[in-house]
């Protein structure tokens, strides 16, 4: 059988924020782009991050150049990606366990990095966030915000697709095709069908994040990226509505981000060798819950919903040194031109960086790629708004509730926790034909709420079956896999309320539906 072939100007490997940003920028510059990911979009680090659109405040003392980048990108993203951002604002507070001297260095650093900062009284901070530790001694307001990874990535991809880009989720790069001195494209494998596919590209960008070392190796190049593992715990509701940071040198569990319906505490930072094996441990979880107490007394009594870990693509700019403490590695990014470094043409790697700086990362990568492709078009991503952000209105937490209030009362809720109606589900199904149950979770947030799929997973599987998307066996299989995957996220935090929920869910899935023994 003949291999399917794709001809493209630019092959982008990795569908996280970086790759999606590259695709969007390139499409705006008029390039034909092909974006591939081994899984669904944003299932790498991007889908597992903390959700913070940094003001830069966190890095003003430790990593000033990264702080400056964050500060300017924060301003730009507020203009072009408003629909993905909730303007929560941020607070830096000096808790009783923090060095009080740090606050002055912090203010100075904010000044140097052009970050607007305003000190407010402890009373004002408590009025704004009543659950904050009343024993804080100082409080500063900065323009932190929360940003939705999936919305951002899809918006980039939708914008790129509308300009002719081809997007291939579930397509892993198995090998790179090369001439003696250049990369010419890649062989892909469709993870769902097993089919092979060939892409011919004039230029290839490795945006595989913590996996970029492995992708670079396919071309015989070395990328000294160090995966830095961090865990996060989502609490069942928002204990704060402002991002709260401890005013201290970056450490573990010192930020709570209110994002969508939850508040997420994080994080940790330890170097790991394999970004695919980063399960959180019980010790890390206990440490995180305990750390929350410094910011919000009673934090550890709340209902933990889910725990997960991500791997930062950390790129030490000073090479050759052994990395033992990943906190010491800069959060700035690097574009590696493998022609200059390894004699391999038409191939670059963009790595390091942060979600907050994805646009700038894409720009820097594209500026180099454009030179290689003799393209004069300039970057316009700082001024062209992403799809759905044209109105420049920020997202707000009540949006779904408000929408539901205006929906027909006979459109029942499929997912009660995240307020997804049958109409919403059917609209999503009409948009795309190859949905997996878990893709719908990311697209609609089905199964992300307190019941973790207990009440919606079977409804969605049944809808997919009724609509002909799944045959009987496939629906059974998908349901089993979904439940299994959700269980992974809760088993380590199953105590109190969430344990009670899990028991009820298990009665539904094992007792009533007997999912484990369904024919698959």
């Amino acid at each position, binding site marked *: 059988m003949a291999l399917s072939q794709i001809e493209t100007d630019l092959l982008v490997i990795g569908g996280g924020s970086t790759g999606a940003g590259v695709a969007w920028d390139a499409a705006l510059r008029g390039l034909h782009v092909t974006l591939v990911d081994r899984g669904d979009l944003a299932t790498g680090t991007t889908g597992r991050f903390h959700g913070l659109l940094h003001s830069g405040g966190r890095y003003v003392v430790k990593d000033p150049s990264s702080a400056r980048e964050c500060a300017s990108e924060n301003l730009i993203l507020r203009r072009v990606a408003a629909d993905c951002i909730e303007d929560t604002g941020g607070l830096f507070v000096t808790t009783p366990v923090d060095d009080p001297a740090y606050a002055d260095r912090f203010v100075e650093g904010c000044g140097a990095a052009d970050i607007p900062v305003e000190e407010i009284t402890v009373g004002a901070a408590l009025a704004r966030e009543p659950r904050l530790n009343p024993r804080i001694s100082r409080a500063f307001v900065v323009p932190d915000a929360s940003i939705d990874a999936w919305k951002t990535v899809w918006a980039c991809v939708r914008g790129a697709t509308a300009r002719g880009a081809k997007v291939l989720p579930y397509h892993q790069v198995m090998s790179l095709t090369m001439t003696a001195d250049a990369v010419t494209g890649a062989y892909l494998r469709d993870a769902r069908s097993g089919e092979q596919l060939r892409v011919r590209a004039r230029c290839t960008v490795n945006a595989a994040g913590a996996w970029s070392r492995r992708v670079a190796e396919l071309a015989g190049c070395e990328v000294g990226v160090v995966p830095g593992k961090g865990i996060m715990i989502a609490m069942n509701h928002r204990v704060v509505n402002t991002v709260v940071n401890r005013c201290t040198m970056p450490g573990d569990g010192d930020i709570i981000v209110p994002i969508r319906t939850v508040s997420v505490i994080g994080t940790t930072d330890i170097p790991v060798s394999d970004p695919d094996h980063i399960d959180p441990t019980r010790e890390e979880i206990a440490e995180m819950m305990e750390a929350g107490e410094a910011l919000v007394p009673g934090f550890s009594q709340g209902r933990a919903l889910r725990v997960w870990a991500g791997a930062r693509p950390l790129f030490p700019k000073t090479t050759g040194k052994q990395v033992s403490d990943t906190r010491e590695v800069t959060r700035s990014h690097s574009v590696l031109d493998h022609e200059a470094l390894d004699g391999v043409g038409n191939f670059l790697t963009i790595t390091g960086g942060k979600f907050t700086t994805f646009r700038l990362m894409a720009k820097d990568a594209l500026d180099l790629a454009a030179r290689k492709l003799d393209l004069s078009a300039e970057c316009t991503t700082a001024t062209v708004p992403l799809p759905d952000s044209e109105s420049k209105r920020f997202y707000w937490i009540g949006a779904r509730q408000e929408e539901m209030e205006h929906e027909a009362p006979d459109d029942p809720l499929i997912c009660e926790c995240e*307020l997804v109606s049958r109409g919403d589900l059917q609209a999503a199904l009409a948009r795309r034909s190859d949905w997996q149950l878990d893709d719908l979770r990311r697209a609609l947030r089905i199964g992300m709420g*307190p019941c973790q799929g207990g*009440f919606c997973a079977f409804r969605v599987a049944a809808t997919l079956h009724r609509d002909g998307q799944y045959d009987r066996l496939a629906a059974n299989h998908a349901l089993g896999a979904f439940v299994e995957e959700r269980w992974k996220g809760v088993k380590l935090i199953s105590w109190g309320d969430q344990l009670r929920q899990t028991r009820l869910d298990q009665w539904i899935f094992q007792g009533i539906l007997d999912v484990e023994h369904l024919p698959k």
Partner: protein
Amino acid sequence: MSTEALAPFEVRSSLDHCIKCTVCESSCPVAAVTPLFPGPKTVGPQAERFRAGDHSPDLSVDYCSGCGICTRVCPQGVRIAEINSRARAEMKVERGIPMRDQILARPGYMGKAGRPVAPLFNWALANPVVRLLGERIVGVHRKAPVPLAASRSFSYWAGRRRRFLAPRRVVYFHGCSTQHFEPEVGKKVVAVLEHNGFQVLIPKQDCCGLPLQSNGIFGAARRYVERLATQLSVPGTEGLPVIASSTSCGLMLKKEALEILGVEDGHLAEISKRTYDLFEFLLELHERGELRTDFQPVPLTVAYHAPCQQQNQLIGKPALDLLRLVPALRLVEMDRLCCGIAGTYGTKREKYDIAMRVGEPLFADIKTASPDLVACDSETCRWQIAKATGVTAVHPLEVLYRAYGGS
């Protein structure tokens, strides 16, 4: 006496206990009769996760009647009704409070305004043309039950009577309806308590703010209840039991002011712990062998309905237990959750039909029992039941009063 009230943030945090079992939704009397109210779980612990900051996303929570059954039946301890009341208040702050609700929320004004011209006032309230205008202009349903103004207030009577002195003393919290509309109830409460050897102290008192609270007017409600707490703790009454004959106003003091309004007033927290529902107090006396049981036969059939606000005190049905001691009384327990009125809810133009549908099973049961009287501890429920069934509805205290030989 109440179970420990939660701090305001704990009321919100109680949403964490929700496992979506849906027990509340299947017990909600409002959701059962109208699609306009999606149910207590939906607007409660579910929607609460989407609320933050200054902009309210809500609409349908306005159809919650505030009966509180959801909180009572929740097996996990979610303060559903309290969460909903607060959300309703936020919503009203944002969307504005109709003049109608401002009026309904201040029954004292009505009572005071009506008293000097009671005959005229009462005629007007009974006049269909006036009521139609009231519905069109103000939004109070023309058929909704409204109380009639008394020509003399309860405090007028209380201030002019001879004092009964006794070593055991209680403070009587009579509430607005006794003051303005049903002073007879108050007189009989005093008689029954004195018959049992209590000196009844009746400090000057104003509205507890409950109707304001249930209409989402929290600022004024807080001021009212704090003022009342001060009034009820005049010097010389320290530590005395506070007896409430209006069961919903009693609940306000015991719990709702703390959990829904988040009042942190020290007086209130202290008084709240020694506030008793009238029959709760009498039953406790009886259990200690201190209640006089010199009852005479009352050869009547009485249908007893326990109102939601009394049930939400988690004290059982003490009136039922006590009236069972009365000889010759045929007592029929109405096993229904709600009469629909929920304070002022069922008087509103857009909610009247809903309230009537909620009460329908109760009304039908009452008709089947064809009693001489209906007994119910809450005034607004009595007015609703009497209006809907045509049967006279009284406070259970009035039956007890008869049993003690009063007439």
